[in-house]
């Protein structure tokens, strides 16, 4: 090692000055290096960065200079220096990561599970009082009124939903001049979740969260919004639920004619004044709890998968329903039926539906999906198409299928299963270039899928064919968007003939 021994005061001063200036410059360079790490990291591996980044072209030079400076030092100094820099980075990064961590009063898995149990129990209690209540039909009713509310908002037809809306909401909507200048279209409902079911002295109430998106057009300009709305539906205590034909579409609760009312809420067919909540559910409160503008950039954005390791949320009444289902279908062995269901329905639907998604041929599985689910996913497929993107799910394989809930009511029966699967989930553009996700690293995930069919349908799951109409057995190649088989004219998407997939919920979002 070279050593400088200070021989006299003149050489000492010169050397001190040199060392001082050199130290300050080096310190400055190192501070820049530590404060602005992107100078060194802008082009990792030599320039694969997406940005043009011409302003950063000096980065390698500074990095190289620092590297060269460290190399010039003797090892007993450069090694501790490197160690100190590494330790510094470790603490700095740890500190900065910690800075962004926050604890918020959001529900944990345990809170969600308790709330799920509470809601399920209240629905069961409610069904004791109203045996005609069907969760699936209620979803249809919510879908129908939601569509009409926004389609008619600000238009003359808004009067047709007067008996289904609280008078203060109706008046506010009617008196808002902005509604008259706005047109809402392409309404898509993604999901409907039950939040609570309750009864007071006068009314029964059901609170639901509606995840939707729609296009708002004003002065010729359109904006697409993604929303979560919380709606309270109320009905006079003691009123019973209506049959499917009056729940799927808005009809006069008195005579059953298509909804055609005047401003006072009088049915134009039977001339009865319909008071909201007297005979049918009505919207008692609307609250928009989340709203953002839809951005197509999000189509290729991947978040870290969460919720796959959460325990399966199993309905508290599942054993009762298994017994009930076994008895009503005169099954000898429930386990055998369950095996048949998972092998021939859940498994096959999952593979077929995601294959159609991957190939962007949603129409091919029209006969397997409910209207709402078909519409909802069509929107996303169209969005990918518009951006010339494709979401591929390669090597899709199912790892496990768990039973989460069984429900049956007067009109429908539904199975909710949790499907654990893995695949290479990625997004490519028109040229086949990878835009998001990974072709090499498999993504493990789980989802809750709800299948439904009309009560009383006896269809052997083992004889089910994915490619035929479940009513007439003809090839499922002529099924239009309305899910009507052109061979037999039957509408298939109501579950009147076989199982229909009606809902897909991500594991971290599932609340029953």
């Amino acid at each position: 090692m070279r050593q400088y021994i200070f021989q006299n005061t003149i050489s000492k001063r010169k050397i001190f000055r040199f060392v001082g200036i050199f130290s300050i410059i080096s310190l400055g360079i190192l501070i820049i290096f530590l404060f602005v790490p992107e100078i060194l990291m802008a082009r990792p591996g030599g320039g694969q960065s997406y940005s043009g980044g011409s302003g950063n072209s000096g980065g390698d030079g500074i990095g190289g200079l620092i590297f060269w400076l460290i190399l010039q030092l003797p090892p007993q100094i450069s090694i501790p220096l490197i160690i100190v820099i590494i330790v510094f980075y470790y603490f700095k990064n740890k500190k900065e990561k910690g800075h962004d961590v926050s604890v918020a009063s959001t529900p944990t898995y345990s809170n969600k599970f308790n709330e799920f149990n509470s809601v399920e129990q209240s629905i069961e209690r409610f069904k004791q009082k109203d045996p005609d209540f069907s969760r699936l039909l209620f979803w249809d009713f919510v879908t129908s009124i939601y569509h009409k509310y926004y389609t008619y908002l600000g238009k003359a037809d808004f009067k047709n939903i007067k008996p289904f809306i609280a008078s203060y909401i109706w008046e506010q909507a009617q008196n808002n001049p902005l509604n008259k200048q706005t047109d809402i279209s392409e309404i898509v409902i993604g999901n409907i979740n039950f939040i609570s079911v309750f009864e007071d002295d006068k009314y029964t109430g059901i609170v639901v969260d509606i995840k939707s998106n729609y296009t708002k057009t004003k002065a010729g300009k359109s904006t697409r919004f993604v929303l979560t709305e919380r709606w309270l539906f109320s009905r006079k205590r003691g009123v019973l639920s209506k049959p499917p034909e009056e729940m799927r579409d808005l009809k006069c609760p008195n005579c059953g004619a298509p909804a055609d009312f005047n401003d006072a809420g009088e049915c134009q067919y039977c001339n009865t004044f319909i008071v909201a909540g007297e005979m049918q559910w009505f919207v008692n409160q609307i609250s928009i709890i989340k709203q953002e503008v839809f951005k197509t950039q999000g189509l290729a954005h991947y978040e870290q998968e969460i919720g796959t390791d959460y325990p399966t949320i199993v309905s508290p009444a599942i054993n009762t329903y298994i017994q009930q289902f076994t008895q009503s279908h005169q099954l000898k062995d429930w386990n055998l039926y369950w095996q048949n269901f998972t092998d021939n329905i859940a498994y096959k639907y999952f593979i077929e539906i995601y294959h159609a998604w991957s190939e962007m041929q949603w129409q091919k599985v029209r006969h397997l999906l409910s209207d709402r689910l078909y519409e909802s996913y069509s929107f996303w497929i169209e969005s990918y198409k518009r951006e010339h993107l494709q979401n591929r799910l390669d090597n899709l394989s199912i790892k496990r299928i768990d039973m989460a809930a069984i429900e049956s009511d007067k009109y429908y029966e539904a199975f909710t299963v949790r499907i654990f699967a893995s695949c290479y989930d990625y997004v490519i553009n028109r040229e086949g270039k990878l835009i998001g996700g990974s072709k090499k690293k498999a993504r493990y995930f789980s989802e809750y899928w709800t299948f439904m069919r009309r009560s009383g349908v006896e269809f052997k799951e083992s004889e089910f064919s994915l490619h035929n109409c479940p009513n007439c057995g003809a090839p499922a190649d002529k099924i239009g968007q309305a899910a009507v088989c052109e061979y037999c004219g039957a509408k298939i998407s109501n579950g009147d003939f076989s199982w229909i997939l009606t809902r897909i919920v991500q594991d971290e979002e599932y609340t029953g």
Partner: protein
Amino acid sequence: MKRFDEDFRTKLYDAIKKIEDNSLTEIVVIIKPSSGKYRDIPVWSGAIIAGLLYTFFMFSHIEFDVYLIYAFTILSFFVVWSLVSATNFIQKLFVKKSRKQKNVEIRARAIFQKGGIRFTQERIGVLFYVSLLEKIVFILPDRGAEHSIPDEEWKNMRSDFQTIFKADDIAAELLQKLDNWQPVFAKYIPPVENDINELPDDLEVNL
């Protein structure tokens, strides 16, 4: 942040639910490790120590190897910077109270806006923002809530929540305080018929 674990979060949600079940108000609690980065404090600390050390090298009667002067000046800077960055103690000591308060208030107000706490129909949202480094609980009520509860109660609430930092277990103390103040919310902002929670469960609170 370790003390604010899953168990705490479950209890926190339950404590808030208890308040909301008995009141129209909607409570949001956010806990952050700090409300500012205070990067200047470690830099200044490192620079001062490096400067002092360099002065010592310059004017000491002892003769040093130039490598030592060079390396120790830089090393001292990084060591002090790392230590001060990693420990909150010195930052707490050197950051002015007014600066801390300002940072906490800016953060709280930003979260209030971004989290959409202002979107309740009756404007009855209340944010409890806990900033640990600054040791400040900032309570930010929306207009409706502020009008409903007398100012004296707000003052008492603010000073009472501020005492959580004196407790050994801040997390438990925070839960206790929420529980203690539940009757006040119930008294001044009582529940109404058909009250539905208007704030989403997954609030966007990261700025």
